[in-house]
Every structure is written in C-alpha cells, then in structure tokens.
C-alpha cells in the first residue's frame, strides 16, 4: 500500500509539473482565416484589464483540434479553454460554468438557444458559447460564368441546374472541374438534407440510410465520375480526414465551390481582385434548399486547475461588445442573441463581395430545415459524417460499388454505436 502511494505521488508530481501555473489560462485555438490575429489582440486586452490572469494562446492546426484534443481530453488533460467544432461529441469534457460565471441569466438569454449543442443531453450546463455560427453554402466564380456567357442559376436553382451550368462554364473556360465540395460529412449532409435525408431514428440513434441519402450519394458519385465534381478532394485521403477545396476555388480552377460562411474572410483575403465571386446560398433538392448550420464554440475544459480564472476569461469573451467586435473583425456570423437582435453589424471589410456574401448567408439561414437544425445537438452526427466520408471516398476511388457503400455506411455506424456501449 505504501509503495502504491509513493508511486501514485510520484506520478502526480510528474503530471502536475507540466501543468499550467496558478493564474494561467491556456487556450487551444485554430483559425480558418484572420480570427487568430483578432483573438490575440483580444487576449492582450483581457490581460491588461485582468493583470492577475495570464492567458496563453496556443494557435494550432485544425487537425490538432480534431485528432489530438479528443485524446488529451480522454486522458483527463488538455487546455483550459478550447475552440472546437465537435462540441456535442465531446460534451462530457466541458466544464459547467453555471456556478462560476457572474451572471448565468445573461448566458442563458444570449447563448441559451445553442447551449444544447455543447452540453450532455438533459443537462442545464453552461459549457461555453459559439464564437460564430456558420451555415454551409455555395460560392460561384462570377468572372468565369460571365466569360463563358452562361447565366448563373438563381436563388431557387436546384443542384442539377447548378451542375449543368457549372459544367458548361468549366468546358468553356477549360478549368479542371466544374464543382467541388469539401471532404466533410458536415458539408455533404447539406445537399443530402435537401434530398430529404433524415439520419435520426425514432429511438434517437442513427437510422439506416434512407432514400434521400441514397439518391444524393448516387447523384454525387455519378457527377464525380462524369468530371462535374472534383474527384481530387474526396480521394486524396483515407478514412474521414478533412480536406477543403478552397485552394482550387481561390486559384480560379472551379466554377462552383460548396463550403460555408466561414470561408468568406479567407476568400476575400486570398482572391482579392483576381476575379469576382458571389455566395449563392444552398442549391435546392426535392425536399428543401437548406444549408447545414454549425460553428465553432469556445468551451471551458473541466480538467482545468484554474476554474475561477477560466470563468473570468469566458465572461469577458462573452461580453456583448467583445462578441460584436470579434464578429465585425473576423466577418463571422455572431451567435449572441443581443448582437443579432440589435443588428447594425459593421463588418470590417471594404470588399463589397464579402459584404454581399455575408448578406446572402444571413438570408439563406432562414431556409434552414428543421432536420438540419437538430443535427448539431445530436450525439451521433459526427459518427454518421465519418462513416459517409470514409465510404464515399472509397467509392469515388473505385473500391466500392454504390450498394456496398450504403451497406458499409450502415454497418460502420451500427458498429460504432455498439462500440460506444449504447
């Protein structure tokens, strides 16, 4: 017993020797665009106002957040605060800020409608807040359309109409691909929803792929084989690895790119005056014209040694004027009810295309389907996304037939549910 105590003591000493000191708040942060710089500026201001708290901002790649952070959390480690997208899936690791923040009612009022996205089912926990809301949607290279003399499909246009028009543009302008969609289950779920998919079974667990899912996936595979959709993005990795097609769009190699509102700042900065582009919203399917909502959240991690300091930092970051400034400088859609209701956001860009694109996304958010709104708070969403990306990637590489793909997706999801012991 004594030996065990000594070993446990030594292990604890070893672990704590690498942990943050009292007063430190370590933030794990990733950036899609300019938000890392904005965050650094805000953190510096926070530390000036709160000299007793030292915030360490670790800027990491998104893959670190996606692949390494969950492992750290499972081991009971990790940062004090993190910016994450798999907010529901990791909800058991978030700190309940309710007893720690100054005014829980302020949090409920302004962030309450998205609180379920980041807390365990049935809890009233305050885990953090959405740094931005996102909505998937399309971007079209307006210059290419104009040069090709092809009329751009309108707001109610279907996926088929966009595919036909984009193919015409690509053939005319000799760009490698007409369309591309990010290698992401979240992204591809948007058109699947427009085709009428519903992942959620009656028991709340994943349902087998329905006809809507099969219809869009069949169409997507056919389009890719015909060279309408860029094959590169989807076959460039195994498993459910994320790949964005933004670089191809930025380089003028695509007529139409389906991604989301978080790309606006990135496209604005990198495309500059090279060509004109527009946000198109989400093309329609037989069931809807919906995009997929989502976003990134700033959450507190329950393994922190400094919960009081973390709460002070989170309170400061969640202030209305800070959220407003963050949104205006990063060109992100805010998730703060007060900021949204008061409106008048002055997005800090001179780029008219960016302003118009943000307006399009705000407008498109009104067409978001009920099923789409349920998914961010659904525990199994990431499991379904991962299975779809993995198997569709194999199908596009010529390894699986469509029938096998559907069977494997269902089997993979069922196995994951079984592995989770539920």
């Amino acid at each position: 017993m004594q030996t065990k105590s000594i070993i446990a003591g030594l292990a604890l000493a070893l672990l704590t020797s690498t942990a943050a000191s009292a007063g430190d708040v370590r933030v794990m942060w990733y950036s899609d665009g300019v938000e890392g710089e904005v965050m650094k500026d805000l953190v510096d201001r926070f530390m000036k106002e709160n000299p007793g708290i030292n915030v360490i901002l670790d800027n990491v790649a998104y893959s670190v957040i996606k692949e390494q952070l969950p492992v750290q959390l499972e081991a009971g480690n990790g940062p004090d605060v993190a910016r994450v997208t798999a907010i529901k899936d990791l909800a058991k690791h978030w700190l309940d800020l309710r007893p720690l923040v100054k005014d829980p009612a302020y949090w409920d009022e302004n962030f309450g409608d998205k609180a379920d996205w980041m807390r365990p089912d049935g809890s009233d926990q305050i885990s953090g807040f959405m740094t931005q809301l996102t909505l998937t949607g399309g971007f079209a290279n307006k210059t290419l359309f104009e040069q090709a003399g092809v009329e751009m499909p309108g707001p109610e246009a279907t996926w088929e109409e966009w595919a036909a028009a984009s193919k015409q543009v690509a053939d005319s302008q000799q760009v490698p691909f007409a369309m591309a969609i990010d290698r992401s289950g979240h992204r591809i779920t948007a058109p699947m929803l427009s085709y009428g998919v519903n992942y959620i079974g009656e028991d709340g667990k994943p349902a087998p792929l329905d006809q809507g899912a099969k219809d869009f996936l069949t169409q997507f595979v056919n389009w890719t084989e015909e060279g309408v959709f860029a094959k590169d993005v989807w076959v460039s990795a195994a498993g459910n690895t994320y790949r964005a097609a933004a670089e191809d769009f930025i380089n003028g190699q695509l007529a139409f790119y389906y991604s989301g509102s978080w790309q606006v700042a990135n496209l604005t900065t990198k495309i500059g005056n090279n060509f004109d582009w527009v946000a198109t919203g989400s093309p329609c399917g037989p069931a809807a014209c919906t995009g997929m909502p989502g976003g990134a959240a700033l959450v507190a991690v329950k393994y922190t040694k400094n919960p009081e300091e973390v709460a002070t930092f989170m309170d400061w970051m969640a202030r209305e004027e800070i959220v407003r400034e963050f949104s205006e400088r990063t060109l992100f859609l805010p998730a703060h009810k007060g900021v949204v209701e008061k409106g008048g956001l002055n997005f800090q860009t001179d780029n008219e295309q960016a302003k118009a694109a943000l307006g399009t996304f705000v407008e498109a958010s009104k067409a978001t389907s009920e099923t789409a709104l349920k998914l961010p708070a659904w525990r199994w969403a990431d499991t379904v996304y991962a299975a779809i990306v993995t198997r569709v990637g194999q199908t596009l590489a010529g390894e699986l037939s469509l029938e096998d793909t559907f069977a494997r997706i269902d089997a993979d999801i069922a196995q994951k549910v079984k592995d989770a012991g539920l």
Partner: protein
Amino acid sequence: MTPPAAGSPAPSRSFASILLAPVKLVMGIIDVPLRALQKATGISGMAIFFLAPNMLIFGIFVLLPLAINFVYSMTGGTAFFLADRTFIGLDQYDRLFECSNYLDPMSCQEDAFWTAVGNTGWFVVLQVTLMILVALGTALILNRKLRARSFWRAVFFFPVLLSPVVVGLIWKWILQRQGLLNFALFEMGIEPHNWLTDRTWAFVAAVGVSIWAHMGFYALILLAGLQAIPKDLYEAAEMDGTKASRVFWRITLPLLAPNLLVVVVLALIKAVQVFDEVYVLTGGGPGTSTMFLTQYIYETGFASQLRNPGLAAAASILMGLVLVVLTLLQLGIGRKTEPKGGKK
C-alpha cells in the same frame, strides 16, 4: 638526439594531474562501495548492477507499454483509461480475423485492416526488392574511382537526413495535380496526369518516395561491405582476365552476402512500419490504396470518430509479432555472420 630541457615535461604532467585530480577523487569515492559490492555479489552481481539502470528504463518505456498494450487489446469500449474499459477477452482479435475470404478484404468485418495488411504486404515486397537493387547499384557505383566521389556519397545519403514530413511534402509538391512534374510535362507538350489520385500511380509514388528517402542508408552499409572485400581478389581476377559479370557473381556478391542479409532484414522491418512520409504524401488515399498497417492502427486508435483503442492495440500486437519474427531473423543472421574470433 637532444634530450628535453631539464624540467620541461614537469609542468605538463602537473597540469594533467591537476585536471585529473577531481576525476581521481570521484573514482576513489566510487571505488570503495563498488569494491565492497563486488566482494559481496561477485562478478555476475556487478553485471546486474551495471545493467540495472538500462533495464529499468527499457522496462518502463518498452516492456511496460507493451504489456499495457496487450491488456488493452483484450478490452472493449471507447474509454481511454484502462480502469474504465471492459474486459472482452479475445473479441478484438476475433473481429480482426472475421473474414470469409482473407484475399478479399471486402468480405471481412474489418475490411480496412485487411486492406492495410494487403497494401503493406505489397509495399514490403516491392519497396524492399527495388530498394536493395538500387542501393546495391548505387554502392557499386560509389565504390568506383569517381570524380567528386565524396560529394556523390553525400548526395545519395542526404535524403536520409530529412524529416519524413519534409520528404512527404517535397514529393507532394512535385506530384500533385498542379505540381512540378505536371508543369514540366506540360512544358514538354506531354499530357499531365493526376498522379496522387490514381490508385496505381499513388502506390508507385509511395514506393518510390520511400526508396528515395531510405536508400542512402542501405547503400552506405553496402558500400562499407564492398570496401571490406580484399583488393587482391579483384587483382587476381583481373590478371586471370575474368569477365566483370563473373567477378560480380563469384567475388563481390558472395563476400557482400552478410551485409546484404542485414540490409534485407533491416529494410523489411522498416517497410512493415511504413507510415509518416506516405501519410503526408497521400493521406492513405486514393480511397485506401496507400493505407498501410501503421496508419490503420493510428486511425483506429486515435484519429477516427469514436476511437477504438482496443482494436488498435490488437492490430498493433499482430504487427508486433511480425516484427518480432523479422528481428529474430536479423539476430540469427547476425550470429551466423559474426567472425569466429578467439579460437586459434
């Protein structure tokens, strides 16, 4: 011969002795307990005493994780802490081996595992065979009297010094759709090809890049072997007018055989573990055509949604068994090729 000036060596001796004094002091302090220990335990006890620190480190950082990994392979669930996991015996191994036809991965429950096994098998056969041939050819050329021979030796060894991530990125920039190779082909009027999204070419690229990255190391070992072959054998063959090909098959190759065997086994072990540069280059794609066993283990244990550490541990134990066989082979070869010294 002029005798040294009287007293001249004395200062250097005293300087050396001043320098050595602290060492002598420490040695003297250590000597006392060590002598006592040797008296009490004998020579064999001293061997254990000196080996103990190393064995302790080996035990903590190699044997203990190995044992923990084995225990993990017999547990289920998605939790990382062993205490939170359920003991399920050999179920993870059953799951890996549940297959109606091992040659058709799609007939297996864990099709990704068997695809990775198949890919790794092909990779090992192709990469090791080609790399040994290229390394041997390179060593034979570098063993000749070349102009700037040292420079060429450094050139071939240089990729070995690069980080695998750097290797992967360099070749990705060369081989991707808008990469250097396609640019060069386009400039020459040849139709560019999408090398990394073509299953066959992506696999060829994985093999080729791996050979490029590691060949220098094996060429160096073979070069050392070539230089150890007595020159008089070649001189005698030359005097007899023996053909160059006969010299290679009858002198060079037999005398290089011990080095070649070591190189083959080392290359086999390294090839089974292939991961980093290929992961950066292709991400395991297109589809799963360049996904190897180590990537499968990594993805299953750490990267995939709802990780399964037990399944990853079971796959790594199986891979470990293959590596143990190869290591034993290497040790056996090492013993056989050791010079039999000490018996005159």
